[in-house]
């Protein structure tokens, strides 16, 4: 239990990003050290759920329909509200591009 809650780090690639990439598996409740590209610690965030290594943790709250930003660029839109510390992945983040399903009236986020 103690081992699982140890601190892990996550990388923010651009100042404007609202997600960071976790560099190891993160347990629910773990303190995640958020690092900038220069390796300096920006802040610490408590993980609200389990996040697999290499996946994204939310570092600024995102409202439904708002853009998730990584590399300083839009990587798609939030399909539900995402709180700081949440796991950001295909369950709550949709592409805006390559969405042939939307033209056919399927799918949600545009």
């Amino acid at each position, binding site marked *: 239990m103690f081992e699982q809650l140890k601190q892990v780090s996550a*990388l923010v*690639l651009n100042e404007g990003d609202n997600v960071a*990439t976790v*560099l190891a598996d993160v347990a629910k409740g773990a303190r995640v050290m958020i690092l900038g590209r220069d*390796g300096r610690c920006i802040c610490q965030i408590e993980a609200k759920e389990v996040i*697999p*290594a*290499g*996946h*994204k943790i939310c570092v600024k709250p995102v409202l439904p329909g708002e853009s*998730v930003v*990584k*590399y300083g*660029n*839009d*990587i*798609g839109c939030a399909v539900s509200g995402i709180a700081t510390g949440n796991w*950001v*992945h*295909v369950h709550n*983040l*949709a*592409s*805006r*591009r*390559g*969405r*042939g*399903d*939307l*033209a*056919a009236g*399927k*799918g949600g986020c545009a």
Partner: protein
Amino acid sequence: MTFSGFPRPDGAVGVRNYLAVIPTVVCANHVSKSIAREIPGSVALAHEHGCNQIGADADLFKRTLAGLGKNPNVGAVLLVGLGCEEFNPWEIAELIIPSGKEVCCLSIQEEGGTSKAIARGIKLAQELYSGIRDIQRRECPLHMLTVGIECGGSDYTSGIVSNPAAGLCADSLVRQGARVVFSETTEIVGAEHLLMSRIASETKRALLQQMVNRVEEDARRMNCDIRGAQPTPGNIAGGLSTIEEKSLGAICKSGSSPIVDVLEYAEPCTLPGVSFMDTPGHDVTSMVGMVAGGAQLLLFTTGRGTPTGNALAPVIKLCANPETVKKMAENIDIDLSQVVYGNSTLDFAANEIYDYLLKVAAGEKTRAEMLGHCEFGIHRVGPTL
């Protein structure tokens, strides 16, 4: 800076010295492979096409075969046809001959069947190979290199480390006057605005936009969200959630130099600097497109791990995922995982890639070559009729 390569009659320089045995139609695969098996230094480029193709698809196929024959890693060419297909070997040979290489052709129907065609092919191949066997390497300026950059089996480490490191290496190559080509149109969707800002020519920007539009039109035509195919299930398991995210990481492999050209699949890459080539995200067909465009060497970044090689060009695998470099160690040429943890830098990694690339150009075998990987596939843009 120089590298040690095989000089060709047209002034190009190969980093390998192959006799290419090229079937002009799928029906000639067995004969081509049987010939190549008997001749050391030869490679058969078996594929599934060459019959019942029309229009732009037929043009692409022809351009690809000709480009492969012209690739500087090829010293001589044997074209093998059946005899009733629309791309006869002599027609493809016409396109290769201006490069000054020896080219021979063979038709299975004319020879009178499989055994006779193989026997005649072996004789021709022996003659062709004896003409290139003794070509010696010599030091050549780096601007004679065309390096293709591919990414495949991408994950979170690709966009953070291996693609940016490959990009820095691309910048160094460009400073030396070399040509760098990157590809995979699907994997620029969502990041095309960043590439556009590096293209001076309005015409070329418009061409790139058309290529991107086509990918999205295809998705609309199929009524599909491309997610699941792009990013792939492996990409998604590796932390990439959307095509935009994958693309923003993927384009880092092209570095930061201006983009001087936007090429069709297998179109010759002629301008010094970075060019983009319109290929699918399918690694094998993408690399074949770049090799047909003239790339003698390929850098290949991966996160999840892939063994893929190429029949004519050495493929250098770069990987920054610490699990993958352990699990698939035999497939990875350069381990960049220390950069992820801040124990090494992107600049250091880029220098390491650059130095290794020159060694491979001079003959050192890559992991893919040592393991016998020589994947080959040609892109299609039309139906088989």
